[in-house]
């Protein structure tokens, strides 16, 4: 009886194996670069590609112009052992990551390369460009994916993360996704991982469809110059809410962040009130973060804010109101006045190593 059962299981597994082997994938990752380096979030897209299929060739697509692009391409070639090819689109049209030329580029590269999957991380770059490209390729994209269950089944949060929806993609190639970088962490890559690096090839842009390119023009980017680590990938995040009462008081949050080597975050209320610029907003409509330590000061814990940080490993909340919803997700809570707690923390915390 037992042996028959064993045989049955073995034959099932054999079938699964052969099905898997014949279903090889090829993935195009839309990558971002800055100052000659690949942005950390783009590597998450490569990690996500690995979950799609064991047999998956990953190509990274970069666009831009000039030497910083070529430098980024060289970095891309060795950034992750899974990357088997780097495609570079070098043109003035890509000087800024505008959706119109990028979508046409993806269409062009897809038509030539016939990839089974196209992935970008779901930051403002991916969210802006991938759906437009999907429309040009006549497919529905799956956005904000947090889990990949095979080549065509994905899990994504809905209702501000209060529910998880598993969807199956049943359309034609390519299957297009944006993935949450916090759900696909990049393991540290050993120095010897890929000594040679993937081949780099220039994309032939001579047949790039010009229609709609040029109708949008980049004017400027206003951003705060900061030495703080990137909010999306920082190990520790210190967030302040409206209870900080002023931009001046917010400096306390910054001091604490400095002491911990952390990034600074803010709630939507704090940004709306003008205490800090929008790029610090954590939440459903801001950035999604999942650091090792998330410290929230004067944050009530509205659903939309929780949606942006509830996957943090350790959550600390400090609030005067013992009934604040934030305490329901906090691992460690302190009911107290942040104006007293923060100075004491600054005094007592060990210096960062």
């Amino acid at each position, binding site marked *: 009886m037992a042996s028959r059962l064993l045989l049955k299981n073995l034959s099932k597994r054999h079938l699964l194996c052969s099905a898997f082997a014949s279903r090889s994938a090829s993935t195009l990752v839309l990558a971002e670069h800055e100052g000659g380096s690949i942005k950390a979030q783009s590597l998450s897209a490569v990690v996500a590609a690995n979950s799609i299929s064991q047999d998956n060739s990953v190509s990274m697509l970069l666009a831009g112009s000039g030497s910083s692009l070529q430098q980024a391409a060289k970095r891309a070639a060795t950034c992750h052992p899974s990357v088997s090819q780097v495609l570079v689109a070098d043109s003035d049209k890509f000087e800024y990551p505008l959706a119109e030329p990028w979508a046409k580029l993806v269409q062009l590269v897809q038509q030539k390369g016939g990839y089974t999957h196209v992935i970008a991380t779901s930051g403002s770059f991916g969210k802006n460009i991938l759906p437009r490209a999907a429309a040009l390729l*006549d497919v529905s*994209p799956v956005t904000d994916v947090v889990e990949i269950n095979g080549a065509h089944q994905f899990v994504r949060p809905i209702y501000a993360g*209060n529910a998880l929806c598993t969807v199956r993609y049943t359309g034609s190639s390519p299957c297009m996704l944006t993935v949450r970088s916090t759900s696909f962490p990049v393991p540290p890559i050993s120095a010897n991982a890929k000594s040679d690096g993937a081949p780099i090839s220039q994309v032939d842009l001579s047949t790039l469809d010009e229609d709609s390119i040029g109708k949008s023009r980049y004017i400027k980017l206003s951003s705060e110059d900061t030495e703080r680590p990137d909010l999306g990938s920082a190990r520790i995040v210190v967030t302040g809410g409206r209870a900080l009462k002023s931009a001046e008081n917010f400096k306390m949050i910054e001091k604490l962040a400095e002491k911990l080597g952390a990034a600074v975050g803010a709630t939507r209320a704090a940004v709306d009130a003008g205490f800090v*610029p*929008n790029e610090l907003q954590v939440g459903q409509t801001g950035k999604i973060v999942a650091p090792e330590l998330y410290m929230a000061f004067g944050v009530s814990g509205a659903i939309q804010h929780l949606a942006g940080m509830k996957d943090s490993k350790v959550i600390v909340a400090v609030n005067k109101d013992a009934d604040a919803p934030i305490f329901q997700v906090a691992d460690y809570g302190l009911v107290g006045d942040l104006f007293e707690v923060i100075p004491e923390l600054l005094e007592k915390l060990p210096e960062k190593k």
Partner: protein
Amino acid sequence: MVAVKRVVDYAVKIRSGVETQNLKMSMNPFCEIAVEEALKIKEAGLAQEVVAVTIGPANCVDTLRTGLAMVADRGIHVEAARELVPLTVAKVLKRLVKVENPGLLILGKQAIDDDCNQMIAGLLGWPQGSFASKVVLEKEKQVATVDREVDGGLETLCLDLPAMITTDLRLNQPSYATLPNIMKAKSKPIKKYTPEELNVEIKYDLEVVQVTEPPKRKAGVILSSIDELIDKLKSEAHVI
């Protein structure tokens, strides 16, 4: 043209199974902002007419009436019994744009369950200003200068009209429709279409397999002192 979507009210707490039968439904908050922006543009004399559009089953007309009460002169309801995939929604909107010829298409940047509005701009070949926190229209030059909230800060783009904008939360503060306007809205015309009448092939390339509750976090503790907090973070959580 403004697109509005009827969704579960954002303040409703969702539990697993997501039974939407008796839940409070309202206009997607981002669509409210889109409607408000259309109102501001019309009040500034930069638009002659605002058309509100919704796609979905019969009860979506409620949402359309709200749009009509706020600002829209006419409404369009594309009736679809089943939830359409983003690609089909985009194709329907494209057809409507071809019929109506608006100079500006405004949508919310995301809904409670999707965020694919950029697709329509792709199908139309129009420039897109997504996640807009400020829109300035210049009629003579036929351009829109848009400030967008991006990961790196605030990006400013100049778009040739006709263009598509998706609204971010800080674009404006939606106002409420006044009672007289709500009454007037009842007699504003709503044109009905079906996707078939618009020559849109309904394709389903996404299938919902299941909806589940996310794993719950383990309950935390309230500590009594900062010393205790630092100690826990060091020796228990090992994060500092």
